[in-house]
Protein backbone atom coordinates (compact mmCIF):
# COMPACT_ATOMS: atom_id res chain seq x y z
CA UNK A 1 0.00 0.00 0.00
CA UNK A 2 1.47 3.34 -0.99
CA UNK A 3 1.74 6.03 1.67
CA UNK A 4 -0.46 8.42 -0.25
CA UNK A 5 -3.28 5.90 -0.59
CA UNK A 6 -3.14 4.89 3.08
CA UNK A 7 -3.17 8.54 4.17
CA UNK A 8 -6.12 9.22 1.94
CA UNK A 9 -8.00 6.22 3.31
CA UNK A 10 -7.11 7.17 6.87
CA UNK A 11 -8.59 10.61 6.27
CA UNK A 12 -11.73 8.99 4.98
CA UNK A 13 -14.75 8.89 7.24
CA UNK A 14 -14.58 6.32 10.07
CA UNK A 15 -17.83 4.44 10.55
CA UNK A 16 -19.80 5.58 13.61
CA UNK A 17 -22.20 2.66 13.33
CA UNK A 18 -22.64 0.23 16.18
CA UNK A 19 -21.03 -3.14 15.63
CA UNK A 20 -21.71 -6.08 17.88
CA UNK A 21 -20.33 -5.45 21.34
CA UNK A 22 -19.91 -2.23 23.25
CA UNK A 23 -21.24 1.00 21.80
CA UNK A 24 -18.32 3.05 20.52
CA UNK A 25 -17.35 5.99 22.71
CA UNK A 26 -17.66 9.13 20.70
CA UNK A 27 -14.59 11.36 20.65
CA UNK A 28 -15.14 14.65 22.48
CA UNK A 29 -15.70 17.64 20.24
CA UNK A 30 -12.76 20.08 20.17
CA UNK A 31 -13.30 23.39 21.95
CA UNK A 32 -12.72 25.35 18.75
CA UNK A 33 -15.29 25.84 16.03
CA UNK A 34 -15.03 23.28 13.24
CA UNK A 35 -16.42 24.10 9.79
CA UNK A 36 -19.27 22.05 8.41
CA UNK A 37 -17.90 19.27 6.13
CA UNK A 38 -19.88 20.65 3.16
CA UNK A 39 -19.09 24.33 3.82
CA UNK A 40 -17.39 26.02 0.89
CA UNK A 41 -13.86 27.20 1.78
CA UNK A 42 -14.39 26.19 5.43
CA UNK A 43 -16.60 29.19 6.18
CA UNK A 44 -17.54 29.44 9.87
CA UNK A 45 -20.47 31.15 11.60
CA UNK A 46 -19.50 34.63 12.70
CA UNK A 47 -16.54 34.82 10.31
CA UNK A 48 -15.82 37.78 8.05
CA UNK A 49 -16.95 35.88 4.91
CA UNK A 50 -20.50 35.68 6.26
CA UNK A 51 -23.16 38.02 4.93
CA UNK A 52 -26.04 39.22 7.13
CA UNK A 53 -29.21 37.38 6.08
CA UNK A 54 -31.20 40.61 5.91
CA UNK A 55 -28.70 42.20 3.54
CA UNK A 56 -28.70 39.11 1.30
CA UNK A 57 -32.49 38.94 1.18
CA UNK A 58 -32.93 42.59 0.20
CA UNK A 59 -30.79 41.98 -2.88
CA UNK A 60 -32.52 38.72 -3.81
CA UNK A 61 -35.06 38.80 -6.65
CA UNK A 62 -38.01 36.87 -5.20
CA UNK A 63 -39.51 33.90 -7.02
CA UNK A 64 -42.77 35.11 -8.53
CA UNK A 65 -45.52 33.61 -10.58
CA UNK A 66 -46.78 36.10 -13.14
CA UNK A 67 -50.38 35.94 -14.31
CA UNK A 68 -50.28 35.83 -18.09
CA UNK A 69 -52.08 38.65 -19.90
CA UNK A 70 -53.20 37.44 -23.32
CA UNK A 71 -52.49 39.93 -26.13
CA UNK A 72 -55.67 38.92 -28.00
CA UNK A 73 -57.85 40.16 -25.16
CA UNK A 74 -56.61 43.75 -25.65
CA UNK A 75 -57.33 44.07 -29.36
CA UNK A 76 -61.15 43.78 -29.06
CA UNK A 77 -61.64 42.11 -32.43
CA UNK A 78 -64.94 42.89 -34.17
CA UNK A 79 -66.83 40.31 -36.17
CA UNK A 80 -66.00 42.24 -39.34
CA UNK A 81 -62.22 41.68 -39.11
CA UNK A 82 -59.11 42.97 -37.47
CA UNK A 83 -59.82 46.63 -38.10
CA UNK A 84 -61.79 48.42 -35.45
CA UNK A 85 -63.72 51.59 -36.17
CA UNK A 86 -63.04 54.43 -33.83
CA UNK A 87 -65.22 57.50 -34.15
CA UNK A 88 -62.94 60.54 -33.96
CA UNK A 89 -62.40 63.89 -35.83
CA UNK A 90 -60.24 63.93 -38.96
CA UNK A 91 -56.61 64.86 -38.57
CA UNK A 92 -55.04 67.54 -40.80
CA UNK A 93 -53.65 65.07 -43.36
CA UNK A 94 -56.82 62.93 -43.64
CA UNK A 95 -59.90 62.99 -45.87
CA UNK A 96 -63.05 60.94 -45.53
CA UNK A 97 -63.61 60.26 -49.27
CA UNK A 98 -61.41 59.46 -52.31
CA UNK A 99 -63.22 62.22 -54.15
CA UNK A 100 -61.60 64.71 -51.82
CA UNK A 101 -58.08 63.50 -52.57
CA UNK A 102 -55.87 65.78 -54.75
CA UNK A 103 -56.24 64.87 -58.44
CA UNK A 104 -52.77 63.38 -58.71
CA UNK A 105 -53.72 60.79 -56.10
CA UNK A 106 -57.01 59.74 -57.62
CA UNK A 107 -57.47 56.82 -59.98
CA UNK A 108 -57.85 58.13 -63.59
CA UNK A 109 -60.63 56.52 -65.64
CA UNK A 110 -59.35 54.53 -68.64
CA UNK A 111 -60.26 55.78 -72.10
CA UNK A 112 -62.27 53.90 -74.78
CA UNK A 113 -59.16 52.95 -76.79
CA UNK A 114 -57.68 51.20 -73.78
CA UNK A 115 -60.98 49.46 -73.09
CA UNK A 116 -61.10 48.20 -76.70
CA UNK A 117 -57.49 46.99 -76.49
CA UNK A 118 -58.17 45.03 -73.32
CA UNK A 119 -61.40 43.56 -74.69
CA UNK A 120 -59.66 42.63 -77.93
CA UNK A 121 -57.05 40.63 -76.07
CA UNK A 122 -54.32 43.14 -76.77
CA UNK A 123 -54.79 43.08 -80.52
CA UNK A 124 -56.38 46.01 -82.24
Amino acid at each position, binding site marked *: *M*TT*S*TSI*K*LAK*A*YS*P*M*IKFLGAHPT*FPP*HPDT*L*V*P*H*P*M*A*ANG*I*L*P*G*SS*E*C*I*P*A*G*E*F*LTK*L*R*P*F*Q*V*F*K*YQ*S*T*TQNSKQSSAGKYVFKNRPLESNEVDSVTKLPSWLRYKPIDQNEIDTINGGGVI
Partner: protein
Amino acid sequence: MFRSTTSKYSSNLIQIQKQFLSTKTHDVVVIGGGPGGYVAAIKAAQLGYNTACVEKRGRLGGTCLNVGCIPSKSLLNNSHLYQEIKESAAKRGIDIKGDVSVNVQNFQKAKDDSVKQLTSGIEMLFKKNKVTYYKGTASFKDQNTIKVVPIESAAEKEELELKTEKVIIATGSEVTPFPGIEIDEERIVSSTGALSLKEIPKRLAIIGGGIIGLEMGSVYSRLGSKVTILEFAPAIGASMDGEIAKTTQKFLKKQGFDFKLGQKVVSAKRNNDVVDIEYEDVKTGKKESLQSDVLLVAIGRRPYMQGLNAEAIGLEVDKRGRVVIDDQFNTKYPNIKCIGDVTFGPMLAHKAEEEGIAAAEFFKNGHGHVNYNNIPSVMYSHPEVAWVGKTEEQLKAENIEYKIGKFPFIANSRAKTNMDSEGFVKILIDAKTERILGAHIIGPNAGEMIAEAGLALEYGASAEDVARVCHAHPTLSEAFKEANLAAFSKPINF
Protein backbone atom coordinates in the same frame (compact mmCIF):
# COMPACT_ATOMS: atom_id res chain seq x y z
CA MET B 1 -66.01 55.55 40.86
CA PHE B 2 -66.71 51.93 41.75
CA ARG B 3 -67.79 51.25 38.15
CA SER B 4 -64.62 52.77 36.63
CA THR B 5 -62.35 50.77 38.98
CA THR B 6 -64.17 47.58 38.02
CA SER B 7 -63.85 48.41 34.29
CA LYS B 8 -60.14 49.11 34.68
CA TYR B 9 -59.72 45.85 36.62
CA SER B 10 -61.62 43.87 33.92
CA SER B 11 -59.57 45.46 31.17
CA ASN B 12 -56.27 44.58 32.91
CA LEU B 13 -57.48 41.04 33.51
CA ILE B 14 -58.33 40.64 29.83
CA GLN B 15 -54.86 41.93 28.88
CA ILE B 16 -53.19 39.50 31.27
CA GLN B 17 -55.34 36.63 30.04
CA LYS B 18 -54.55 37.55 26.43
CA GLN B 19 -50.83 37.62 27.19
CA PHE B 20 -51.02 34.35 29.10
CA LEU B 21 -52.95 32.58 26.34
CA SER B 22 -50.74 33.74 23.49
CA THR B 23 -47.41 32.47 24.86
CA LYS B 24 -46.47 28.81 24.79
CA THR B 25 -43.25 27.19 25.95
CA HIS B 26 -41.43 24.32 24.31
CA ASP B 27 -38.00 22.76 24.76
CA VAL B 28 -37.43 22.60 20.99
CA VAL B 29 -39.11 24.52 18.18
CA VAL B 30 -38.58 23.31 14.63
CA ILE B 31 -39.29 25.85 11.91
CA GLY B 32 -40.39 24.03 8.76
CA GLY B 33 -42.27 20.75 8.38
CA GLY B 34 -40.46 19.25 5.38
CA PRO B 35 -38.39 16.04 5.43
CA GLY B 36 -35.71 17.69 7.56
CA GLY B 37 -38.05 19.51 9.90
CA TYR B 38 -40.64 16.84 10.58
CA VAL B 39 -37.98 14.17 11.14
CA ALA B 40 -36.08 16.50 13.49
CA ALA B 41 -39.30 17.21 15.40
CA ILE B 42 -40.19 13.54 15.77
CA LYS B 43 -36.66 12.61 16.85
CA ALA B 44 -36.52 15.46 19.36
CA ALA B 45 -39.86 14.32 20.82
CA GLN B 46 -38.62 10.72 20.98
CA LEU B 47 -35.56 11.96 22.88
CA GLY B 48 -37.87 13.42 25.51
CA TYR B 49 -38.14 17.06 24.45
CA ASN B 50 -41.39 19.02 24.51
CA THR B 51 -41.31 19.76 20.79
CA ALA B 52 -43.21 22.03 18.42
CA CYS B 53 -43.09 22.24 14.65
CA VAL B 54 -44.27 25.30 12.73
CA GLU B 55 -45.19 24.99 9.05
CA LYS B 56 -46.79 27.67 6.89
CA ARG B 57 -47.74 25.61 3.86
CA GLY B 58 -50.85 24.24 5.51
CA ARG B 59 -49.64 20.69 5.01
CA LEU B 60 -46.59 18.89 6.33
CA GLY B 61 -43.98 17.26 4.16
CA GLY B 62 -42.36 20.30 2.59
CA THR B 63 -41.40 20.53 -1.05
CA CYS B 64 -40.66 16.81 -1.18
CA LEU B 65 -44.11 15.53 -0.29
CA ASN B 66 -46.19 18.31 -1.78
CA VAL B 67 -44.48 19.51 -4.97
CA GLY B 68 -41.33 17.45 -5.34
CA CYS B 69 -40.20 13.86 -4.82
CA ILE B 70 -43.55 12.25 -4.10
CA PRO B 71 -45.83 13.70 -6.78
CA SER B 72 -43.12 13.33 -9.41
CA LYS B 73 -42.63 9.65 -8.50
CA SER B 74 -46.35 9.08 -8.87
CA LEU B 75 -46.31 10.60 -12.36
CA LEU B 76 -43.14 8.70 -13.27
CA ASN B 77 -44.50 5.36 -12.08
CA ASN B 78 -47.89 5.71 -13.73
CA SER B 79 -46.51 7.06 -17.00
CA HIS B 80 -44.05 4.16 -17.06
CA LEU B 81 -46.90 1.70 -16.58
CA TYR B 82 -48.79 3.36 -19.41
CA GLN B 83 -45.78 3.12 -21.70
CA GLU B 84 -45.16 -0.53 -20.74
CA ILE B 85 -48.77 -1.45 -21.43
CA LYS B 86 -48.72 0.30 -24.80
CA GLU B 87 -45.35 -0.91 -25.98
CA SER B 88 -44.69 -4.27 -24.46
CA ALA B 89 -47.98 -5.83 -23.42
CA ALA B 90 -48.26 -7.87 -26.62
CA LYS B 91 -44.77 -9.38 -26.40
CA ARG B 92 -45.50 -10.31 -22.79
CA GLY B 93 -48.54 -12.26 -23.96
CA ILE B 94 -51.11 -9.69 -22.87
CA ASP B 95 -53.61 -8.77 -25.54
CA ILE B 96 -55.54 -5.55 -25.04
CA LYS B 97 -58.83 -5.00 -26.78
CA GLY B 98 -59.44 -1.34 -27.51
CA ASP B 99 -57.37 1.75 -27.04
CA VAL B 100 -55.04 2.47 -24.15
CA SER B 101 -55.03 6.16 -23.30
CA VAL B 102 -54.22 8.54 -20.47
CA ASN B 103 -57.02 10.19 -18.53
CA VAL B 104 -55.15 13.30 -17.44
CA GLN B 105 -57.68 14.13 -14.73
CA ASN B 106 -57.37 10.71 -13.09
CA PHE B 107 -53.62 10.74 -13.65
CA GLN B 108 -53.44 13.93 -11.59
CA LYS B 109 -55.93 12.58 -9.05
CA ALA B 110 -53.80 9.49 -8.41
CA LYS B 111 -50.86 11.77 -7.74
CA ASP B 112 -52.89 14.07 -5.48
CA ASP B 113 -54.28 11.11 -3.52
CA SER B 114 -50.76 9.80 -2.77
CA VAL B 115 -49.67 13.24 -1.62
CA LYS B 116 -52.73 13.69 0.60
CA GLN B 117 -52.30 10.29 2.24
CA LEU B 118 -48.66 10.92 3.01
CA THR B 119 -49.09 14.44 4.35
CA SER B 120 -51.91 13.20 6.62
CA GLY B 121 -49.64 10.36 7.65
CA ILE B 122 -47.09 12.81 9.00
CA GLU B 123 -49.77 14.57 11.03
CA MET B 124 -50.60 11.17 12.53
CA LEU B 125 -46.93 10.65 13.35
CA PHE B 126 -46.87 14.02 15.07
CA LYS B 127 -49.87 13.03 17.18
CA LYS B 128 -48.31 9.67 17.97
CA ASN B 129 -45.04 11.29 19.11
CA LYS B 130 -46.78 14.23 20.82
CA VAL B 131 -45.26 16.91 18.61
CA THR B 132 -47.28 20.13 18.74
CA TYR B 133 -48.01 21.25 15.21
CA TYR B 134 -48.61 24.94 14.51
CA LYS B 135 -49.96 25.93 11.11
CA GLY B 136 -48.42 29.34 10.72
CA THR B 137 -45.53 31.52 9.66
CA ALA B 138 -42.69 31.48 12.16
CA SER B 139 -40.37 34.42 12.63
CA PHE B 140 -37.72 35.26 15.16
CA LYS B 141 -38.47 37.84 17.80
CA ASP B 142 -35.22 37.04 19.58
CA GLN B 143 -32.93 34.05 20.08
CA ASN B 144 -35.44 32.29 22.31
CA THR B 145 -38.77 33.62 21.07
CA ILE B 146 -40.55 32.63 17.88
CA LYS B 147 -43.64 34.53 16.76
CA VAL B 148 -46.24 32.41 14.96
CA VAL B 149 -48.84 34.08 12.74
CA PRO B 150 -51.52 31.52 11.92
CA ILE B 151 -52.34 30.82 8.28
CA GLU B 152 -55.90 31.06 7.03
CA SER B 153 -56.66 27.37 7.38
CA ALA B 154 -55.36 27.13 10.93
CA ALA B 155 -57.89 26.26 13.62
CA GLU B 156 -56.17 28.63 16.05
CA LYS B 157 -56.62 32.16 14.73
CA GLU B 158 -54.58 33.86 17.43
CA GLU B 159 -50.98 34.95 17.03
CA LEU B 160 -48.65 33.12 19.35
CA GLU B 161 -45.25 33.54 20.90
CA LEU B 162 -43.26 30.38 21.44
CA LYS B 163 -40.64 30.56 24.16
CA THR B 164 -37.92 27.98 23.65
CA GLU B 165 -34.38 27.02 24.57
CA LYS B 166 -33.58 25.32 21.29
CA VAL B 167 -34.48 26.04 17.67
CA ILE B 168 -33.94 24.03 14.50
CA ILE B 169 -34.32 25.99 11.26
CA ALA B 170 -35.49 23.76 8.41
CA THR B 171 -37.07 26.22 5.99
CA GLY B 172 -35.92 24.42 2.88
CA SER B 173 -35.52 25.79 -0.62
CA GLU B 174 -37.42 27.31 -3.54
CA VAL B 175 -37.20 27.26 -7.31
CA THR B 176 -34.41 29.41 -8.73
CA PRO B 177 -35.99 31.83 -11.20
CA PHE B 178 -34.38 32.36 -14.62
CA PRO B 179 -33.62 36.06 -15.08
CA GLY B 180 -35.85 37.55 -17.76
CA ILE B 181 -38.24 34.61 -18.01
CA GLU B 182 -41.64 35.07 -16.38
CA ILE B 183 -43.05 31.89 -14.92
CA ASP B 184 -46.85 31.73 -15.10
CA GLU B 185 -47.21 28.04 -14.11
CA GLU B 186 -49.40 27.49 -17.17
CA ARG B 187 -47.16 27.59 -20.24
CA ILE B 188 -43.89 28.66 -18.66
CA VAL B 189 -43.64 26.48 -15.58
CA SER B 190 -41.40 25.55 -12.72
CA SER B 191 -41.30 21.96 -11.44
CA THR B 192 -44.39 22.81 -9.37
CA GLY B 193 -46.43 23.70 -12.45
CA ALA B 194 -44.99 20.80 -14.43
CA LEU B 195 -46.52 18.40 -11.92
CA SER B 196 -50.01 19.75 -12.54
CA LEU B 197 -50.27 20.40 -16.27
CA LYS B 198 -53.91 20.22 -17.39
CA GLU B 199 -53.05 18.64 -20.71
CA ILE B 200 -50.16 16.76 -22.20
CA PRO B 201 -48.09 19.22 -24.24
CA LYS B 202 -47.20 18.24 -27.80
CA ARG B 203 -43.82 19.96 -27.39
CA LEU B 204 -42.08 20.36 -24.05
CA ALA B 205 -38.86 22.35 -23.81
CA ILE B 206 -36.83 22.13 -20.60
CA ILE B 207 -34.13 24.54 -19.50
CA GLY B 208 -31.76 22.46 -17.37
CA GLY B 209 -30.36 18.97 -17.86
CA GLY B 210 -30.33 18.03 -14.20
CA ILE B 211 -32.37 15.38 -12.42
CA ILE B 212 -35.59 17.41 -12.10
CA GLY B 213 -35.63 18.34 -15.79
CA LEU B 214 -34.80 14.82 -16.97
CA GLU B 215 -37.41 13.20 -14.71
CA MET B 216 -40.21 15.53 -15.80
CA GLY B 217 -39.05 15.09 -19.39
CA SER B 218 -39.33 11.33 -18.94
CA VAL B 219 -42.93 11.63 -17.72
CA TYR B 220 -44.15 13.67 -20.65
CA SER B 221 -42.03 11.88 -23.24
CA ARG B 222 -43.79 8.65 -22.25
CA LEU B 223 -47.15 10.36 -22.60
CA GLY B 224 -46.36 11.50 -26.12
CA SER B 225 -44.62 14.88 -25.81
CA LYS B 226 -41.62 15.80 -27.91
CA VAL B 227 -39.05 16.77 -25.28
CA THR B 228 -36.11 19.13 -25.90
CA ILE B 229 -33.48 19.70 -23.24
CA LEU B 230 -31.57 22.99 -23.32
CA GLU B 231 -28.48 22.74 -21.13
CA PHE B 232 -25.72 25.29 -20.60
CA ALA B 233 -23.04 22.72 -19.71
CA PRO B 234 -21.57 20.39 -22.35
CA ALA B 235 -23.06 17.36 -20.57
CA ILE B 236 -26.17 16.46 -18.59
CA GLY B 237 -26.28 15.23 -14.99
CA ALA B 238 -23.87 17.56 -13.23
CA SER B 239 -22.83 15.33 -10.32
CA MET B 240 -22.96 12.02 -12.21
CA ASP B 241 -19.95 9.91 -13.14
CA GLY B 242 -18.99 10.84 -16.71
CA GLU B 243 -19.61 7.38 -18.19
CA ILE B 244 -22.94 7.17 -16.40
CA ALA B 245 -23.98 10.61 -17.68
CA LYS B 246 -23.09 9.66 -21.28
CA THR B 247 -24.98 6.37 -21.02
CA THR B 248 -27.97 8.14 -19.49
CA GLN B 249 -28.01 10.62 -22.33
CA LYS B 250 -27.90 7.75 -24.85
CA PHE B 251 -30.88 5.93 -23.43
CA LEU B 252 -32.89 9.11 -23.05
CA LYS B 253 -32.11 9.96 -26.65
CA LYS B 254 -33.40 6.53 -27.63
CA GLN B 255 -36.59 7.42 -25.78
CA GLY B 256 -37.01 10.47 -27.99
CA PHE B 257 -35.28 13.26 -26.05
CA ASP B 258 -33.59 15.96 -28.12
CA PHE B 259 -30.52 17.33 -26.35
CA LYS B 260 -29.15 20.78 -27.08
CA LEU B 261 -26.05 20.95 -24.91
CA GLY B 262 -23.70 23.88 -24.52
CA GLN B 263 -26.59 26.24 -25.20
CA LYS B 264 -27.44 29.42 -23.33
CA VAL B 265 -31.07 30.47 -23.27
CA VAL B 266 -31.32 34.15 -24.14
CA SER B 267 -35.06 34.70 -23.90
CA ALA B 268 -38.35 32.89 -23.58
CA LYS B 269 -41.67 34.59 -24.14
CA ARG B 270 -45.16 33.24 -24.02
CA ASN B 271 -47.37 34.09 -26.98
CA ASN B 272 -50.81 32.88 -25.98
CA ASP B 273 -50.60 29.10 -26.34
CA VAL B 274 -46.97 28.75 -27.34
CA VAL B 275 -43.61 29.74 -25.93
CA ASP B 276 -40.92 31.20 -28.19
CA ILE B 277 -37.41 30.48 -26.97
CA GLU B 278 -34.18 31.95 -28.24
CA TYR B 279 -30.84 30.42 -27.38
CA GLU B 280 -27.23 30.67 -28.46
CA ASP B 281 -24.27 28.33 -28.58
CA VAL B 282 -22.00 29.02 -25.62
CA LYS B 283 -18.83 28.57 -27.72
CA THR B 284 -19.74 29.94 -31.15
CA GLY B 285 -22.50 32.40 -30.24
CA LYS B 286 -24.69 30.99 -33.02
CA LYS B 287 -28.28 31.94 -32.32
CA GLU B 288 -31.25 29.64 -32.81
CA SER B 289 -34.86 29.61 -31.85
CA LEU B 290 -37.35 27.01 -30.76
CA GLN B 291 -41.07 26.99 -30.15
CA SER B 292 -42.80 24.77 -27.59
CA ASP B 293 -46.22 24.39 -26.03
CA VAL B 294 -44.78 24.33 -22.53
CA LEU B 295 -41.41 25.47 -21.22
CA LEU B 296 -40.13 24.01 -17.94
CA VAL B 297 -37.53 26.09 -16.13
CA ALA B 298 -35.49 23.59 -14.10
CA ILE B 299 -32.16 25.26 -13.43
CA GLY B 300 -32.04 24.35 -9.76
CA ARG B 301 -33.20 25.47 -6.35
CA ARG B 302 -31.98 28.01 -3.84
CA PRO B 303 -32.18 28.31 -0.03
CA TYR B 304 -35.42 29.80 1.30
CA MET B 305 -35.83 31.88 4.44
CA GLN B 306 -38.34 34.57 3.55
CA GLY B 307 -40.48 35.69 6.44
CA LEU B 308 -38.18 34.17 9.06
CA ASN B 309 -37.00 37.61 10.24
CA ALA B 310 -33.50 36.17 10.43
CA GLU B 311 -32.20 39.74 10.46
CA ALA B 312 -33.73 40.27 13.92
CA ILE B 313 -31.12 37.94 15.39
CA GLY B 314 -28.37 38.67 12.86
CA LEU B 315 -28.31 35.24 11.24
CA GLU B 316 -25.67 34.93 8.54
CA VAL B 317 -25.52 33.35 5.11
CA ASP B 318 -22.80 32.69 2.56
CA LYS B 319 -22.73 34.24 -0.90
CA ARG B 320 -25.20 31.64 -2.18
CA GLY B 321 -27.70 32.39 0.56
CA ARG B 322 -27.05 29.25 2.60
CA VAL B 323 -27.23 29.68 6.37
CA VAL B 324 -23.69 29.34 7.71
CA ILE B 325 -23.34 26.54 10.25
CA ASP B 326 -20.51 24.60 11.85
CA ASP B 327 -20.04 20.83 12.07
CA GLN B 328 -22.67 20.60 14.83
CA PHE B 329 -25.27 22.43 12.69
CA ASN B 330 -24.92 25.47 14.97
CA THR B 331 -25.48 28.93 13.55
CA LYS B 332 -23.68 31.73 15.35
CA TYR B 333 -25.95 30.84 18.30
CA PRO B 334 -25.32 27.40 19.80
CA ASN B 335 -29.02 27.06 20.63
CA ILE B 336 -30.11 27.63 17.01
CA LYS B 337 -29.28 24.85 14.57
CA CYS B 338 -29.97 24.72 10.88
CA ILE B 339 -30.48 21.72 8.57
CA GLY B 340 -31.63 20.71 5.11
CA ASP B 341 -31.80 22.64 1.85
CA VAL B 342 -31.42 26.04 3.50
CA THR B 343 -27.83 25.27 4.46
CA PHE B 344 -24.79 23.44 3.05
CA GLY B 345 -24.78 20.17 1.18
CA PRO B 346 -26.79 18.49 -1.57
CA MET B 347 -30.45 19.47 -1.71
CA LEU B 348 -31.80 15.99 -1.09
CA ALA B 349 -34.66 14.96 1.18
CA HIS B 350 -32.77 12.04 2.70
CA LYS B 351 -29.78 14.28 3.49
CA ALA B 352 -32.16 16.64 5.31
CA GLU B 353 -33.66 13.68 7.22
CA GLU B 354 -30.22 12.51 8.37
CA GLU B 355 -29.39 16.04 9.48
CA GLY B 356 -32.71 16.32 11.33
CA ILE B 357 -31.87 13.27 13.41
CA ALA B 358 -28.28 14.38 13.96
CA ALA B 359 -29.34 17.88 15.06
CA ALA B 360 -31.78 16.47 17.65
CA GLU B 361 -29.08 14.07 18.88
CA PHE B 362 -26.55 16.88 19.12
CA PHE B 363 -28.96 18.78 21.37
CA LYS B 364 -29.56 15.74 23.57
CA ASN B 365 -26.24 13.85 23.64
CA GLY B 366 -23.70 16.35 22.38
CA HIS B 367 -23.09 14.01 19.44
CA GLY B 368 -24.67 13.25 16.11
CA HIS B 369 -23.28 12.39 12.71
CA VAL B 370 -23.95 12.44 9.01
CA ASN B 371 -21.58 10.80 6.55
CA TYR B 372 -21.55 13.23 3.65
CA ASN B 373 -19.35 10.82 1.67
CA ASN B 374 -22.16 8.31 1.66
CA ILE B 375 -25.27 10.13 0.48
CA PRO B 376 -26.88 8.35 -2.47
CA SER B 377 -28.45 10.08 -5.45
CA VAL B 378 -31.19 8.61 -7.59
CA MET B 379 -32.79 9.65 -10.85
CA TYR B 380 -36.14 7.94 -11.38
CA SER B 381 -36.04 7.73 -15.14
CA HIS B 382 -36.34 4.35 -16.77
CA PRO B 383 -33.92 2.73 -16.44
CA GLU B 384 -33.22 4.29 -13.04
CA VAL B 385 -29.83 5.83 -12.34
CA ALA B 386 -28.33 5.72 -8.84
CA TRP B 387 -24.95 6.44 -7.42
CA VAL B 388 -23.09 6.82 -4.14
CA GLY B 389 -19.51 7.56 -3.20
CA LYS B 390 -16.81 8.70 -5.60
CA THR B 391 -16.95 9.07 -9.36
CA GLU B 392 -14.05 8.21 -11.65
CA GLU B 393 -13.45 11.93 -12.21
CA GLN B 394 -13.18 12.58 -8.45
CA LEU B 395 -10.78 9.68 -7.93
CA LYS B 396 -8.59 10.90 -10.79
CA ALA B 397 -8.60 14.43 -9.39
CA GLU B 398 -7.57 13.10 -5.96
CA ASN B 399 -4.85 10.88 -7.52
CA ILE B 400 -6.32 7.73 -6.06
CA GLU B 401 -5.50 4.56 -7.98
CA TYR B 402 -8.62 2.53 -8.56
CA LYS B 403 -10.01 -0.51 -10.34
CA ILE B 404 -13.39 -0.91 -12.01
CA GLY B 405 -15.82 -3.79 -11.93
CA LYS B 406 -18.78 -3.73 -14.35
CA PHE B 407 -21.67 -6.07 -14.89
CA PRO B 408 -24.48 -5.53 -17.42
CA PHE B 409 -28.10 -6.31 -16.59
CA ILE B 410 -28.38 -8.14 -19.89
CA ALA B 411 -26.47 -10.94 -18.14
CA ASN B 412 -28.74 -10.90 -15.09
CA SER B 413 -31.43 -13.58 -15.18
CA ARG B 414 -34.08 -11.57 -13.31
CA ALA B 415 -33.63 -8.58 -15.60
CA LYS B 416 -33.92 -10.86 -18.64
CA THR B 417 -37.09 -12.53 -17.41
CA ASN B 418 -38.57 -9.10 -16.66
CA MET B 419 -37.64 -8.00 -20.20
CA ASP B 420 -35.96 -5.02 -18.58
CA SER B 421 -32.24 -5.42 -19.00
CA GLU B 422 -30.90 -2.05 -20.08
CA GLY B 423 -27.99 -0.75 -18.00
CA PHE B 424 -25.15 -1.97 -15.82
CA VAL B 425 -23.57 -1.82 -12.36
CA LYS B 426 -20.17 -0.15 -12.03
CA ILE B 427 -18.09 -0.50 -8.87
CA LEU B 428 -14.96 1.55 -8.18
CA ILE B 429 -12.48 0.08 -5.69
CA ASP B 430 -9.12 1.12 -4.28
CA ALA B 431 -6.43 -0.50 -6.40
CA LYS B 432 -4.42 -1.72 -3.41
CA THR B 433 -6.91 -2.48 -0.63
CA GLU B 434 -9.94 -3.22 -2.88
CA ARG B 435 -12.09 -1.12 -0.54
CA ILE B 436 -15.27 0.07 -2.30
CA LEU B 437 -14.98 3.78 -3.11
CA GLY B 438 -18.01 4.32 -5.32
CA ALA B 439 -20.97 2.53 -6.87
CA HIS B 440 -22.90 3.60 -9.99
CA ILE B 441 -25.94 1.82 -11.30
CA ILE B 442 -28.07 2.29 -14.40
CA GLY B 443 -30.83 -0.22 -14.54
CA PRO B 444 -34.05 -1.58 -13.09
CA ASN B 445 -34.47 -0.90 -9.37
CA ALA B 446 -31.19 1.04 -9.17
CA GLY B 447 -32.69 3.29 -6.49
CA GLU B 448 -33.31 0.33 -4.17
CA MET B 449 -30.04 -1.44 -4.98
CA ILE B 450 -27.90 1.57 -4.14
CA ALA B 451 -28.75 1.05 -0.46
CA GLU B 452 -26.58 -2.10 -0.47
CA ALA B 453 -23.73 0.00 -1.85
CA GLY B 454 -24.30 2.57 0.89
CA LEU B 455 -24.09 -0.09 3.57
CA ALA B 456 -20.90 -1.50 2.04
CA LEU B 457 -19.36 1.99 1.98
CA GLU B 458 -20.36 2.66 5.58
CA TYR B 459 -18.83 -0.62 6.78
CA GLY B 460 -15.65 0.00 4.79
CA ALA B 461 -16.29 -3.20 2.84
CA SER B 462 -14.04 -4.47 0.08
CA ALA B 463 -15.40 -5.76 -3.22
CA GLU B 464 -14.62 -9.31 -2.07
CA ASP B 465 -16.67 -8.80 1.13
CA VAL B 466 -19.75 -8.05 -0.97
CA ALA B 467 -19.02 -10.73 -3.57
CA ARG B 468 -18.77 -13.41 -0.87
CA VAL B 469 -22.22 -12.56 0.56
CA CYS B 470 -24.91 -14.88 -0.72
CA HIS B 471 -27.44 -12.89 -2.80
CA ALA B 472 -30.81 -14.51 -3.55
CA HIS B 473 -31.46 -15.92 -7.02
CA PRO B 474 -33.01 -14.78 -9.24
CA THR B 475 -32.75 -11.14 -8.18
CA LEU B 476 -31.46 -7.94 -9.69
CA SER B 477 -29.08 -7.60 -6.71
CA GLU B 478 -27.01 -10.44 -8.16
CA ALA B 479 -25.79 -7.88 -10.69
CA PHE B 480 -24.41 -5.86 -7.78
CA LYS B 481 -22.64 -8.93 -6.42
CA GLU B 482 -21.22 -9.81 -9.85
CA ALA B 483 -19.95 -6.26 -10.43
CA ASN B 484 -18.03 -6.52 -7.15
CA LEU B 485 -16.71 -9.91 -8.28
CA ALA B 486 -15.62 -8.32 -11.55
CA ALA B 487 -13.83 -5.57 -9.62
CA PHE B 488 -11.39 -7.81 -7.77
CA SER B 489 -11.56 -11.03 -9.79
CA LYS B 490 -13.77 -12.18 -12.70
CA PRO B 491 -17.57 -12.35 -12.94
CA ILE B 492 -19.17 -15.75 -13.27
CA ASN B 493 -22.17 -14.90 -15.46
CA PHE B 494 -20.64 -12.57 -18.02
